[in-house]
């Protein structure tokens, strides 16, 4: 029997509702505890606001003295700018990452800054993590192709740029960004989705001409670009 045509949208939604309704969930906690938690939260916010005034005053003083470097990298609303990359938060909820090929990528900063924009990522240096099978949905998380002629081919990209949509990230998955400095002086970044509960990492740079095991062309991305020093002899 083929039941494909028998399920209407409402029937599918009802089945989803029934399955989720069968999950055991906790009874509501005591409402007094919730209200107390809210009051504690309000107190913390007031304290933070008071502390914020002091920080703002200090920042204003630093700016007046030309000491912005002492307060960390230069940042504008919606944009994180470091020496090795720029991350822009777009109005549609996506984020655009542009790598500066003249500098070595800072994986720790990139992972932390991606997280600030709601993009769970594992950014590793001299290592690359993959899952087999790969989680679905890479094309939705990293829509379109990166700017530049190097996508999928071993050609240098002047200014590697990719756009990431955190709302499309499947549950239980995160972006794996493996970064390598090649002996040629070039840099290579490989990007895939991994299942956070099951993945392995390797210190060997993946073959740039073929997707990693468990992935295909549509759910992996390789970027290769010039490094800070001239490539090759």
């Amino acid at each position, binding site marked *: 029997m083929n039941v494909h045509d028998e399920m209407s949208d409402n029937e599918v939604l009802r089945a989803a509702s029934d*399955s989720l309704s069968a999950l055991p*969930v906790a*009874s*509501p906690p005591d409402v007094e505890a919730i209200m107390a938690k809210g009051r504690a939260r309000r107190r913390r916010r007031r304290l933070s606001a008071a502390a914020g005034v002091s920080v703002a005053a200090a920042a204003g003083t630093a700016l007046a003295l030309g000491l912005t470097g002492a307060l960390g990298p230069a940042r504008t609303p919606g944009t994180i700018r470091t020496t090795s990359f720029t991350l822009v938060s777009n109005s549609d909820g996506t984020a655009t990452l542009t790598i500066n090929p003249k500098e070595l990528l800072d994986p720790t900063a990139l992972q932390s800054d991606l997280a600030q924009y709601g993009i769970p990522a594992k950014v590793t240096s001299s290592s690359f993590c993959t899952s087999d099978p790969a989680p679905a949905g890479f094309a939705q998380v990293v829509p379109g192709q990166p700017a530049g002629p190097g996508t999928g081919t071993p050609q240098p990209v002047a200014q590697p740029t990719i756009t990431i949509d955190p709302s499309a990230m499947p549950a239980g998955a995160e972006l794996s960004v493996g970064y390598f400095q090649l002996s040629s002086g070039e840099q290579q970044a490989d990007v895939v989705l991994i299942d956070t*509960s099951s993945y392995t990492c390797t210190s060997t740079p993946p073959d740039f001409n073929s997707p990693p095991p468990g992935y295909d062309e549509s759910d992996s991305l390789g970027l290769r670009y010039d490094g800070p020093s001239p490539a090759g002899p």
Partner: protein
Amino acid sequence: MSNEQTEFAEFFRGSWEPCLRAVVAVVGSPQSAEDQVAEAFAKAWVSWRKVRRHPAPRAWVVRTALNTGASWWRRRRRELPLADHDVTAPGDLGGGLDTTLLTALWRLPARQREVIALRIFLDLDTDTIARQLGIEAGTVRMHLSRGVTALRHELTTAKNMEAGQ
């Protein structure tokens, strides 16, 4: 207890379960969802004068819970960079469940899960979902359609396999 407290308490008791189930549908982990929803209700109490006038206060709680989850996860990752994301495996949730459907649901993109959760647990119409998520009604319809299509595919495949056995 003041009138305001009584009113919030009634809202809380009547809304806890649908809000929690909606958040479970999106985040996958009942334990994380419970923490996030409790935090969201605490925020709702802090802003109760605003939330009580909100056109869809339960949706406000769910949206807040989901945003809370994102910021918690960021903090947890900084503290434990190698910690796994704690989505519950459907097979671990006990017998009698349609694990195929739950697995398929949690594989959907986040936005599709949000739209489905708001529709089935809060019974919100398309326009209200669109306002809550800050997207166009047409985009809601697209996410709902794609999500339902993916779930239907998994369900019918599983049922056909059962029927063929």
